[in-house]
């Protein structure tokens, strides 16, 4: 049974909706990332789980119990806020102990137990030496760790993380991604993570839920998301692709077909689309940059297209070529810097890709 279920969740502000008929089941111990552009409803979804917003309709179930109407302080979930929200009037220890001190009745904790729990948390995030510091005396990364320690201290059923790495610089962000992932493995806790950064989502998550304009577009593993996007939005949002409209012909029973773009055509396999295509069907094709291979003009290949190098962007480990095929299509191709032949602007090249390596959707 999933630990958290969102059923038919809708959220309206006045007449404009932020989240539309959302159904989501989150499994115990998984790292689920809600990914989407800003304004897609991902943060609102997280806030509804945390109890900071109430859904207009639908229900939220935590461990089989309906928590839809509970205020945040009665929910066994904790949040790591975007800007950490550490209490500036308390030091590191007091921040971590804050939630523990709020427990009442049978859950009430003795001073000693609170202290030892705080110690454990400080050790967990390797911040024991900073226990007496005020949050504003810590660096961004350190504040981040304290925010995590504070949220984990209450032993929540689910930890919610709202773009927690957004304020950190690139290098620290990469390091924290690895730390967060390993922390989640070690604790065996369910993490629900919100970000607009697809790379972050792909690296850390067990599963990703992509949202767009209040709708859940697709939910699946990084691999599924990357190689088998369910909707044109996902295909375009994840990774770097070029997109063009085309027409299908010579459709076969195994799903393979020929795709016509202007005066050219290329084959696709049955893996590239879900529903069988009709003859003459209008389609939209997404082609990933790294799937495109370039070959020198004079080599003997069965490449379908010839093109001319437009411009070249050096991105460190790879080189990005913009290649014009006739006047109609411009592709972007990614080639590794090492080993592969290098081209100059104006060079003629041959272009190929495998019949499996694109995504095709009916229009």
């Amino acid at each position: 049974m999933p630990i958290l279920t969102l059923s038919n969740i809708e959220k309206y502000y006045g007449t404009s909706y932020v989240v539309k008929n959302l159904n989501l089941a989150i499994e115990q111990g998984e790292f689920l990332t809600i990914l989407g552009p800003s304004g897609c409803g991902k943060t609102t979804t997280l806030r509804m789980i945390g109890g900071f917003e109430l859904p207009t309709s639908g229900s939220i179930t935590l461990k089989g119990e309906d928590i839809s109407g509970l205020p945040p302080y009665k929910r066994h979930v904790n949040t790591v806020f975007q800007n950490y929200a550490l209490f500036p009037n308390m030091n590191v220890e007091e921040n971590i102990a804050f939630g523990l001190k709020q427990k009442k009745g049978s859950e009430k904790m003795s001073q000693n137990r609170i202290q030892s729990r705080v110690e454990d948390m400080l050790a967990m995030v390797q911040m024991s030496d900073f226990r007496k510091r005020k949050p504003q005396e810590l660096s961004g990364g350190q504040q981040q760790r304290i925010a995590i320690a504070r949220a984990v201290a209450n032993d929540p059923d689910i930890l919610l993380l709202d773009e927690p790495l957004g304020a950190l610089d690139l290098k620290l962000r990469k390091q924290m991604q690895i730390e967060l992932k390993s922390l989640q493995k070690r604790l065996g806790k369910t993490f629900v993570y919100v970000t607009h950064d697809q790379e972050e989502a792909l690296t850390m998550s067990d599963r990703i839920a992509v949202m767009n304009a209040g709708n859940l577009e697709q939910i699946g593993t990084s691999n599924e998301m990357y190689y088998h996007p369910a909707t044109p939005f996902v295909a375009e949002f994840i990774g770097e692709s070029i997109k063009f409209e085309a027409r299908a012909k010579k459709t076969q029973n195994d799903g393979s077909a020929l795709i016509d773009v202007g005066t050219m055509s290329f084959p696709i396999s049955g893996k590239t689309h879900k529903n069988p295509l009709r003859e003459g069907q209008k389609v939209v094709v997404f082609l990933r940059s790294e799937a495109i291979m370039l070959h020198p003009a004079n080599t003997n290949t069965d490449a379908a297209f010839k093109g001319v190098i437009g411009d070249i962007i050096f991105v460190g480990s790879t080189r990005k070529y913009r290649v014009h095929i006739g006047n109609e299509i411009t592709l972007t191709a990614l080639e590794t810097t090492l080993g592969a032949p290098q081209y100059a602007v104006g060079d003629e090249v041959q272009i190929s890709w495998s019949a499996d390596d694109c995504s095709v959707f009916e229009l």
Partner: protein
Amino acid sequence: MTTAYSNRAKAFLLLPMVVWLIAFLLLPYVFIFAQSLMKSDAFGNVVVEFTAESYIKIFTSKLYYATLLKTLMMSCLVAVSCVIISLPLCYFIAFKVQSESRKTMLYTLIVLPFWVSYIVRAYSWKIILGQFGILNGFLLTTGLITEPLEIILYSDFATIICLVYILTPFVAIPMYTALEQIPKSLVEAAKDLGAGSLTTFFRIIIPLGLPGIISGATFALVLTMGDFLAPILLGGPNTLFISNIVQNLFGTSNDKPLGSAVGIVILALIVLVLEVSTYFEKKYSSFKSS
């Protein structure tokens, strides 16, 4: 986030202040409005009988409408003087002083008198303008006059100087805030495009700082219209502001309905001034309100 507070909790937070304001602010205002529509008998007792007599008197008897007009003119004069005095200083601090700490220090120097007691500041001008005061003493020793001038103190002039002095910080604070908000890059851009200092000042700085200047001038205008102390302390026998009339009607003249009516007229005028000023502040504001 509306989930955390029950209606009872909200009422608990708000109600004391609401009740207080109704009992001790709103009802008194309603009361004098009602009183302004009544009349007073020969002994100064308020007779409960509704009439517009007091208002008619204000707009037909010269004492009242002329004083009202004079107060308005004096208020405008004070406001304009405050602006003229504050502008160079605010401009200087906002644009000519480079170091942040020096800016803060100078700004504190403008704000400080704002905190100093009204009565103390009014009093200082009595020493300066008095018969044997600094100004007369100075003029006598330099030989510019041979007899002490008596008309300096206890005159309209002394009243205005005192009000300008007291109200300058009220004008300077919003003015400085507005000038300080103007991005320095705009001034640099104007200079880069060939504008001289004067052009930059009148075409860029003044228009962009206008909302702050208007709001400061409004403070001075409104506060002068309601002032009754400066005329008593520094004014001559003929220096009478409209507020002095209110004070007299509630004191020696003892005609509370008429006093209330004059008070209500002052209120109406001030509300009008505030509305007009807000309209222009919004109209001329180039930056998002902060």
